């Protein structure tokens, strides 16, 4: 370990040729390396302990419990192998939940992406009240999920505020049973989720935009680029890494969507599959039907899908951005 140059800040071009180091320096370098290791161990141990105890161990338990037919009374004894997994994929409601998650993943990307980009570019210009606008845009994201859920549930109820507003605007023909029509409700959920989370995308993109050096836009302006051309050919390419990170976070969040849907959509509509997601399905079956073994199996499936999605995304889209941080140093 002591000879590994990558761990030593002194390694590299300025390092003395191997075999000729003065004895004094060698011992001081060894001490420094040792100190460094103590530092790494000391600083990471608490995090690793917490991670193992609250992430890895529960995950291991989830996998273990998922192999039992177990209703949470007494210790699990009825081993059924992977039966619970087979049952899940045979349940049409679970397949509905998978479809709904897919709608939320792609719907969120397609809706929030363009909206966030447009608003971020707009808010990046100087105008009066810009700070107030930025604040307003971010408010839904800061609100608690349950608050948002209850608010929209009341607004969207039959003959509620949304319906009244549409009628006032002469758009009465657009009025739907937003939360009751089984074919409409998932799109209502997508709308509420978009409203809630678009602010996060905007803030991320604004942060990305503020990292673009002003010299580049100035240079583009001097070269005669219009505002549109500057955005399209300077800003957008430089926003690439931010957009990809946002896509990643949005996708993982959408796969695990729970709170807003749990609160906004009533149990009956969820249990009919119209608004269920994998996470709400897991809680409905694990706790409310008291199928603890089965619920754990659904949890493991949800984890596996999220994990694979995350890996694929990192492998193909995030590789350039996280090179060095995760994939190791390249010379």
């Amino acid at each position: 370990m002591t000879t590994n140059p990558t761990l030593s800040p002194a390694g590299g071009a300025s390092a003395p040729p191997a075999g000729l180091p003065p004895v004094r320096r060698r011992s001081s370098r060894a001490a420094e390396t040792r100190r460094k290791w103590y530092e790494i161990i000391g600083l990471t141990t608490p995090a690793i302990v917490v991670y193992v105890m609250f992430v890895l161990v529960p995950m291991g338990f989830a996998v273990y419990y998922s192999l039992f037919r177990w209703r949470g009374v007494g210790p699990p004894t009825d081993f059924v192998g992977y039966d619970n997994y087979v049952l899940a994929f045979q349940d049409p409601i679970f397949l509905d939940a998978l479809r709904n998650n897919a709608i939320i993943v792609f719907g969120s990307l397609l809706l929030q992406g363009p909206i966030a980009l447009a608003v971020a570019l707009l808010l990046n210009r100087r105008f009066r009240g810009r700070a107030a606008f930025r604040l307003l845009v971010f408010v839904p994201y800061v609100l608690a999920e349950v608050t948002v859920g209850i608010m929209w549930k009341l607004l969207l109820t039959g003959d509620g505020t949304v319906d009244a507003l549409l009628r006032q605007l002469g758009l009465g023909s657009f009025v739907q049973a937003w939360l009751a029509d089984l074919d409409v409700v998932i799109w209502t959920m997508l709308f509420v989720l978009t409203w809630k989370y678009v602010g996060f995308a905007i803030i991320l993109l604004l942060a990305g935009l503020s990292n673009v050096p002003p010299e580049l836009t100035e240079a583009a302006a001097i070269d005669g680029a219009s505002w549109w051309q500057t955005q399209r050919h300077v800003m957008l390419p430089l926003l690439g890494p931010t957009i990809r990170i946002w896509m990643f976070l949005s996708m993982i969040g959408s796969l695990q969507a729970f709170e807003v849907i749990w609160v906004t959509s009533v149990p009956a509509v969820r249990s009919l599959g119209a608004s269920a997601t994998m996470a709400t399905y897991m809680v409905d079956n694990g706790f409310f039907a008291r199928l603890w073994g089965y619920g754990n199996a659904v949890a493991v499936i949800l984890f596996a899908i999220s994990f694979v999605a995350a890996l694929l995304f990192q492998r193909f889209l995030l590789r350039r951005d996280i090179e060095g941080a995760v994939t190791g140093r390249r010379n």
Partner: protein
Amino acid sequence: MAMKHRAGATLALFLTTALLVAGCNGGDDEAPAENELYKNPVTLTWWHNASQDGPGKTYWEKVAKDFSAQHPTVTIQIEAIETNQLQRTRLPAALLTSDPPDIFQAWGGGEMREQVEADYLKDLTDQVKDEVANIGSATEIWQVNGKQYGMPYRMGIEGIWYNKDMFAKAGIAAPPTTFEELNQAVTKLKAINVIPIALGAGDKWPAAHWWYNFALRACSVDTLKKASVDLVFDDPCFVKAGQDLKSFIGTNPFQPNFIATPGQNDPTSANGLLANGKAAMELMGDWNRGTLETVSANPEALKKFLGWFPVPAITGSAGDPKAALGGGDGFSCAKNAPAECVEFLKYIVSPEVQKGYAETGTGLPAAKGAEAGVADPALKSILEATSGATYVQLWLDTAFGSTVGNAMNDAVVAIFAGNGTPEKVVEAMKAAAKK
């Protein structure tokens, strides 16, 4: 503290039992514990579901304080937890550990059966004989294989809550006693442009309760009792219940988009529709008096127009027309809870404490001798109907346990949504029984 004491008590119990067996040629195992009562300080942890600030929660605090005042060795630690959280997560998780609460909410039925099989609960049979005699047949819900594992403090049957003013306006002379009369009432109410029946199908169980009532009318008492114990649903009466429900839904008695209407707790719920004069009827349990008031814009008006009548009979059906659906709340003691737990439980269900409970207006008392605490006329009529019922069937989802209950409710809701069938309900129940 509690653990240490419990270990000590167990040891003492063990020693005295050994002595008794040796000396007195066997005796009641519980007898030595009775002698130990109130000798050593104990702490009882009590988990109940009156989590919302209000008369119910305050009353339990008073009950605990009064008991500690009478028995200074007993300290009671209360934790009030919202029902779903208590029943679905907190209690099952705590019972899996070695240190569950000593006295906790128990709903009886299928879930209690499983808890007894897992040896979680204290057998109270020998100690609560007087209380069981006083409360009567309602205690059967908290029995497993003839032994008493819990005691009810609230018990009531379900019926139809209605708006007397609307009935008068629509020209309905007397509350319906058969489904034909109910159907006629629905027609008359439609004519005066009100919602005949409010339905909180969004929460699933308020919709499922209609199916339970049709099952109660279609199935004989023996069939229902056997189904609760063996989880066998082969009798054709369970399909008949779904068919009857389907034709009833066909008469359009409910408000539009009922599939997304919540049952209670907010003004847009089915409760809100009845409480605020938009709907004429609602099928609901005895707790409805209190929940209607919380969503009412004018509680005084509500008090004046609110009435109650039992679920109508179906002429020519196999079921007992005087049978009713009902349920209640009770408490159980954990297997290893100190003997004082049982004493506290007996105190809770004693007529005087029950009378005070009735006065809170949060539900109907289970014990006889507490009736004087019931003031509301609608609640009084439930009390009369409860004592007049020939048989009280526990809510089917509680009786069959959460797994079958949940599957059954989902399948019934599908009928309401128009994509389920009577046969599928029974299939779902059979499939869930195997899960």
